[in-house]
């Protein structure tokens, strides 16, 4: 199953909108920009901005977090500033989600934009320490960090911290615990990390895409950013499009782009679709009909109980058993519980067991009642949203695959293909 991860996340086709105004992260040249000179030639120097300038820029641009929650960056910055004391900033590129590859794409293709953004937020909150928290595979970035430091363009020293390749490593308190030398597992909240984060200091944890966008906004201005996207969520975002599309990979499109267009950017569906997963393994499933009319904005997707999340889009073709997909991912999610909170530790494996029996064994409708009951036992009963997100993935899946469920209860299955679509990273 590791091979699945490889095919999914290792395949960057560099699709791009070709529309500068649409975003500019991928831009007209999808090739990697790794040397500092090339980066400066393409984007120019970072303008010198004061702390208030950065907060105002983020606010005027309406830049929101691209790690999944969509929280306005300027408000997070203000929360850190208002907490007082010496602050810490963290560029979060952990991306534990196996179906997502956009953070990895950014760190391998646009690392300087991320590091520019990290300096900007460091300036905004007057941080003394900055960290780049990402998988060990990005250790090559040490050279870039040293080069920038030597060139004198980074005022705040950046330290790279290795993120374990686990699903919840990127949760912000998990990131902080990991950077502090502990386990990459979430802490209970309150306190929020903006108040008391790394070593008790106010900490800004920001997704690498958010930071890269901030670096563009600083150069091109808020008006440029607002020329794309929706009023609430201006600008564009990166999508990791996978499954039954011709060119799976990372694409860029404005917020509010119709889902069908996002699929087209990845070459379009390879066959008739039965469902689309949005927002990854804590996200939601849409039926093919819903997917045909949905637009990738928070307000639009809310009507389907979905959200763009961190931009994961997986197209599921007809002929693939949706329940087998649900089962494999639920087993994976149960494995990814940090094991700190009793309901998650005990409940997710039981849920996964029930889904397995629904997908693969002769079973009866009692499984449903049991799944309802167990889901109720885990939702809202944890230090992080792992149980809640996992149950959302399952519940929306069971709704979308209702016909398949009926067939399974009748000891039949629509499966014509043994493809395993959703990538998982199983331990042992």
């Amino acid at each position, binding site marked *: 199953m590791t091979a699945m991860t490889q095919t999914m996340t290792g395949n960057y086709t560099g699709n791009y909108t070709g529309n500068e105004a649409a975003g500019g992260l991928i831009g007209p040249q999808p090739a990697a920009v790794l040397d500092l000179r090339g980066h400066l030639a393409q984007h120019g120097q970072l303008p010198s901005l004061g702390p208030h300038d950065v907060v105002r820029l983020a606010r005027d641009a309406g830049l929101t977090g691209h790690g999944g929650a969509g929280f306005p960056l300027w408000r997070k910055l203000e929360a850190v500033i208002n907490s007082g004391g010496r602050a810490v900033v963290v560029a979060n590129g952990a991306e534990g989600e196996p179906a997502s590859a956009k953070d990895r794409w950014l760190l391998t293709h646009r690392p300087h934009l991320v590091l520019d953004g990290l300096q900007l937020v460091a300036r905004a909150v007057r941080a003394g320490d900055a960290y780049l928290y990402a998988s060990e595979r990005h250790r090559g970035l040490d050279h870039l960090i040293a080069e920038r430091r030597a060139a004198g363009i980074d005022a705040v020293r950046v330290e790279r911290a290795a993120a374990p390749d686990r699903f919840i490593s990127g949760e912000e308190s998990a990131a902080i615990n990991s950077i502090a030398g502990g386990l990459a597992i*979430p*802490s*209970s909240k309150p306190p929020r990390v903006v108040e008391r984060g790394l070593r008790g200091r106010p900490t800004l944890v920001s997704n690498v895409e958010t930071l890269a966008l901030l670096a563009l906004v600083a150069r091109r201005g808020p008006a440029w950013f607002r020329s794309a996207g929706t009023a609430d969520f201006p600008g564009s975002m990166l999508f990791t499009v996978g499954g039954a599309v011709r060119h799976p990979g990372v694409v860029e499109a404005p917020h509010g782009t119709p889902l069908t267009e996002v699929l087209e950017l990845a070459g379009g569906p390879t066959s008739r679709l039965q469902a689309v997963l949005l927002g990854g393994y804590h996200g939601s499933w849409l039926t093919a009909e819903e997917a045909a009319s949905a637009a990738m904005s928070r307000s639009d997707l809310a009507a389907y109980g979905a959200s763009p999340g961190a931009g994961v889009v997986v197209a599921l073709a007809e002929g693939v058993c949706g329940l087998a997909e649900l089962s494999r991912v639920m087993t994976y999610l149960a494995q990814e519980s940090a094991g*700190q*909170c*009793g*309901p*998650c530790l*005990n*409940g997710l494996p039981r849920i996964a067991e029930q889904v397995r029996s629904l997908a693969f064994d002769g079973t009866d409708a009692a499984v449903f009642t049991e799944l309802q009951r167990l889901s109720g*036992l885990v939702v809202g*009963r*944890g*230090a992080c949203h792992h149980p809640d997100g996992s149950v959302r993935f399952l519940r929306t899946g069971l709704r979308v695959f209702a016909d398949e469920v009926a067939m399974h209860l009748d000891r039949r299955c629509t499966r014509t293909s043994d493809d395993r679509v959703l990538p998982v990273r199983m331990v042992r």
Partner: protein
Amino acid sequence: MTRLRIDWTACDGRGLCAELVPELIERDEWGFPLISDAAVPPGVLVHARRAVAACPRLALSLQAENA
């Protein structure tokens, strides 16, 4: 309004709270507290305080919250 809050990372499911405030807290099949209503009625408050003090893991707390 006062609400009961559980620090799930600390809670070990020892169950003292369920013994002390059965009005609000039951235990799930794994022994962890199931709170029927996080809002604590005034009459139960004294029991809830006792449960907070008795929790061997300091996982239970009461939080004043504006309605």
